[in-house]
Every structure is written in structure tokens, then in C-alpha cells.
């Protein structure tokens, strides 16, 4: 995913979580600011970092994510939107 694609995905996610804020491409990654003012940065991990695919950074902390699904979950917490609804996918009985 290119930085502009990542920016668009994360901007959509912020809107879905009803979190105000701006997302912008910053170098090889994306920068955004949490509602509490915390600066966040998301970058793609190097192939040599696998299974890590994404890094979420904020001052004094760098968290790894192994998938875009994990990235969204981490970012959701980081911007104070709380955890996803307890409406995890449930497969109907066969």
C-alpha cells in the first residue's frame, strides 16, 4: 500500500470511528493527530521485519502490527476511539 492509499484508508477509518482529525502523507508514511493532541505516525515495515508489517509511533512509543487489521485496531485505541464494538463476526450455524 502506498502512503497516499494508506492515508485514504486511515481517513476513512477515522470518519467511521467519528474521530475528528487530519491525516496526511509524511515521507514514507502517514501522520495524524489524535484528538488529545498526540502526534501519531504510521509507516510500513521493511520486508526484513516480517511478520511485522506496520509501525504505529507516538512520542516515546513504537508499536508493531502484523496486519492492516491489527493496524486499525491499534490506531483505534491510539486515537481514543475505544475498541471495536463487541459485534465480532459470527458465522451462522451450518
Amino acid at each position, binding site marked *: 500500500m502506498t502512503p497516499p492509499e494508506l492515508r485514504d484508508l486511515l481517513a476513512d477509518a477515522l470518519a*467511521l470511528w467519528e474521530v475528528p482529525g487530519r491525516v496526511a502523507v509524511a515521507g514514507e508514511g502517514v501522520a495524524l493527530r489524535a484528538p488529545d493532541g498526540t502526534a501519531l505516525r504510521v509507516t510500513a515495515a521493511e520486508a526484513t521485519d516480517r511478520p511485522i508489517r506496520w509501525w504505529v509511533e507516538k512520542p516515546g512509543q513504537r508499536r508493531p502490527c502484523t496486519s492492516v487489521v491489527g493496524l*486499525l485496531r491499534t490506531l483505534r485505541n491510539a486515537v481514543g476511539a475505544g475498541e471495536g464494538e*463487541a459485534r465480532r463476526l*459470527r*458465522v*451462522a450455524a451450518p
Partner: protein
Amino acid sequence: MIPVSVVTGFLGAGKTTLLRRVLGDPAWANSAVIVNEFGEVPLDHELLAASEEVLVNVSTGCLCCVVRSDLTATLMDLLRQRAAGLVPPYARVLIETSGLADPAPILHALMTDAAVAATHRLQSVVTLVDALHGAGSLARHPEAQRQAMLADRIVLTKPDLAGDTTALEALLRGLNPAAAIRPAVQGAVPPEWLFATGTLPEFLDAGARHSDGVASITIEREAPIPALALTLWMQALAEHAGARLLRLKGLVALAEAPERPVVVHAIQHVVHALDWLADWPSADRRSRIVLIGQGISRHFPARLLAAIEAEVAEASA
């Protein structure tokens, strides 16, 4: 598999009138009817089971999570009676909900109970909207909105009393871009239209219709989708969109078996078991998924799927 259709609509919308009309049609008289409320107009039909409400509070504690746990028991009791010859061999089940019911818990119960899902198939959700008072009900009662949002078919009742229904129809299309809408006086609407199978093509054609709050969003893929990517995508949608994800249907070519399409069908966070079709219905073998959501960015589902697909492809390379 016995088809089950849910007939819902706000108080006074004319559900019982419609069902009486349906049951009066000889071709549809062999239907079992389950009503949620006692004391309504008795249906003159040989099969009538009554289902008392059992309310169960779950974690969120909201009315949307009320579970009608006796519904599944009623369905299975009826089936046992059918097998034992105690009731005629009905061909389908019609469930009339309470006028104040959010149909989602009922649909979830039908889809997730193992015994019911093994013997019954959810066929359609029919919502009745009073042409005279419907706009007011939709404005004041979230239950009425949910009934419209989750419908496969919407019947405008009492159009003869209301006159011009253009504004109401526009309102309903805003709430549910995929549902077909039809007016009916005194329940006069062909049962085949109400309870027909094959709502999927109509649903898939609903792409790109939207209003301010509710949108139908279409995703198309030329290349087959890995099953893992599809699963992760739906999981992430359910987690982040929550109750905003109203319906999702699709014909999907899975990478593991692209020669046969699977039908994907979800109501909010509950996904129906995948239904494999024998063959593609046309020469068009693209995957097409349509979801109806409230407040979901139009591009978010496709962007998310693309990102997940890329990761799954990389992991399996």
C-alpha cells in the same frame, strides 16, 4: 430446508391484513405462521403458533440486543409436529413480528441457531410501511427505521388513503436503497413477489444508490478473492462498522474454487453459512459484493479489502 420469511412493520401497518390475504391464496395456504403477539386478529388458518417474548439482556443492554429465544424453539416444535403428522406438511414459515420489534435479533436467531439453520432457510424480509403515517413513524421511532433498513421488500400499505407517496418512497429509498418498493391496498400484492427467492440480483443491482445517511456500496473484483482475505475483511468490517453495517450480500469467486460462486449473506455482524452455487448465473464471473451501511465511507470497504488482499497474497507467496 424450509424457507422462512419475516413480515415486519410498525404498529398498524397492516401486517395481519397482508398475511390473511396471502393465506387466502390457495397456492400459499400451506404456510405456517408464527406471530409474536397474543391477542391480535386471529388468523383463520390451520397452522398458527404463538410465540411469547423472552427478553434477555446482553452486554450492551440495549433493546436492539433483545433476543427472542423462544422463536427458535417454536420453529423446531412446529417442525417436529410436522414430521409426526400432527400438523399439515406446510411448505414455508411466515413470521409476523411485533410492530415495535427491531427485526435484526429475530434474523440473527434464525441464522445462528444450529438446529434451525440446519432445517430452515431465511428467504426474505418483508416490511410494511403505512403510506399515511409511515413518514411520522420513521421520524419518531428507530424501530420503524430498522424495519425499513433491513427489508428485502417494502410494501406501502393504504396508498389509497395517502394520495401521493413520492416523498415517502424517496425517504424509504434513502433508508434502504436495495429493497424493492410496491404499494398494496388491503394487502393485495402477489405473494410470489413478497416471498420470492432470488433477491440477490436485485440487491446487487442496488450499487451506488445512497442518501445522506445510508448507502449501498458495491465492490467488484475481477480476480478471485482468497477465502482468508474475505474472512478477515468481513471480520474487520463487523468490528469497526458494528451496527452500521446493515446488510451485505454478494456473489464471490473464491480463489480456492473460482469455478463455483459462493453467496455471501450477512445481516449486521452475523454471516450466513456460505452457499455454493452449482454454477455462475451468467458469463460475468466477477465477484460482486454489495453492502448497505449507515455512515460508512463509500470507499472504506474496497480500500480495506484491497489492503487485506495484498497482505494475504504476500503471506502466501
